């Protein structure tokens, strides 16, 4: 479904991704973990075609998106949803206009239908009647959830989540975990989620991959990651300061 091969990227004179290889299967939730600054967000942006790699390929639906022309890429993106780490809401638009952005730009739905979809998506992410507010009037966790509502507004087939539970309270975090699980169960959505939150990772992941120093150092299902012998992965999931990962 998604196949990343030999992905390499220099940013700011630094080799951020050295050689990333990763396969994500249809209907699977792949969680990518890794220390702060290791390039997880950069990896997600490549999958969305927002960054072009210096080498390597990303094959989605059998096509290499790194070599696509913008028009073709945009057709693909209509089937993708992305939640940005800092939500990246359009701050000149209301919550409603943020969530409905894709619907207004790319569908012929009328105002009534769009309003209904917005209400429904906001409810799914646990937000009530805030459609008329501006992003600057929201808390960090609320923005994140509006970002999530915007990401799922067009009923995407593939969703990229950049730290979906960071910055929201534990209860809301679990609401989001359940939502991700539900989207996968009900709609058979394929997702890639980046997170630090190991509880969330264990709950939503079908498989977990760890990114470290520009490479995927281990991939496996939840059980195999929990019982790993790889000292790097072990240190990371246990969250201890001593070990091969220097801090």
């Amino acid at each position, binding site marked *: 479904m998604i196949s990343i091969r030999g992905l390499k990227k220099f940013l700011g004179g630094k080799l951020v991704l050295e050689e990333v290889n990763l396969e994500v299967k249809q209907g699977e939730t792949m969680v990518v973990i890794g220390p702060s600054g290791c390039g997880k967000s950069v990896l997600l*942006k490549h999958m*969305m*075609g*927002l960054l072009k790699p210096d080498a390597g390929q990303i094959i989605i639906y059998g096509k290499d998106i790194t070599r696509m022309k*913008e028009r073709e890429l*945009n*057709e693909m*993106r*209509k089937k*993708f949803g*992305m939640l*940005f*780490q*800092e939500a*990246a*809401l*359009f*701050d*000149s638009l209301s919550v409603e206009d943020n969530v409905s*952005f*894709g619907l207004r*730009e*790319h569908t012929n739905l009328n105002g009534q239908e769009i309003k209904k979809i917005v209400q429904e998506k906001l409810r799914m992410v646990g937000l009530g009647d805030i459609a008329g507010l501006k992003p600057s009037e929201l808390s960090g966790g609320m923005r994140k959830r509006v970002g999530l509502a*915007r990401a799922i507004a067009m009923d995407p087939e593939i969703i990229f989540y950049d730290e979906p539970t960071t910055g929201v309270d534990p209860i809301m975090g679990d609401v989001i975990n359940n939502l991700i699980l539900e989207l996968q169960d009900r709609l058979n959505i394929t997702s890639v989620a980046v997170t630090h939150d190991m509880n969330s990772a264990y709950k939503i992941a079908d498989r977990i991959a760890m990114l470290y120093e520009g490479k995927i150092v281990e991939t496996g299902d939840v059980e195999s990651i929990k019982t790993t012998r790889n000292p790097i992965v072990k240190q990371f999931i246990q969250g201890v300061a001593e070990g091969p990962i220097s801090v």
Partner: protein
Amino acid sequence: MKGWFAGSGRGILSGVEHTGRVAIFFGQTLQFGLTARWKWKNIIEQMVNIGVGSLPVIMITGAFMGMVLALQSYYQLHKLAVETGIGALVGLSMARELGPVMTGIMLTARVGAAMAAELGTMKVTEQIDALQALATNPIQYLVVPRFLSCLILAPLLTVYTVFIGVTGGYLIGVKMMGINSAFYLSHTVSLVGPADIMTGLIKAVFFGMIIAIVSCYKGLTTTGGAEGVGKATTGAVVTSSILILIADFFLTIIFKIINM
């Protein structure tokens, strides 16, 4: 010495590269502007922002420009006893030069800076990425409406500036210096023709394009957080102002050559 050559060589290369990128950016804007469906809602929103908000500033600068011009020329022409020519002098200077240039500079300061800052902020807070993730082209969605509204509004506001400037000149010449009103007006009308107005408006169209393209380009290529937004904004104002003055010079030469 070698270092100096290498340095200036690099400077020229990056200048050429930059110019190339801006040219491509301009080309894409034109392409989207001509081929894509115009989003009237966005364009009108921008026009209201740019136009209505700029009126007071332009009124004040235009009025004082016209008045000071009238004063200065009065002192000079008075010596030659041809002070009734003030009307024509103010009218011609305002229509051909000061009207479009002042409007351009004021729009740069007010509108260009705001556009660069807004798009720059969107860039550094990943809103531009989000726009692309939502399968929307930033040039089409953000730049084209700004470009079109600058293009339309620069000449409209220039007309306004010229009118206010000429009125200011009239007040000084007739009310303050006591020149005969009929003389003043007949001189103005007989010497300031449609061609003079036209050259001013054509200049304004070019200045509008410069402001929109430079400011949007600077905004969309912002890097480095809040500091970067500040740099982009300053850069947009400085570059647009310089380009407006350079363009003004060459357009004046071209109009001279084609006898306009």
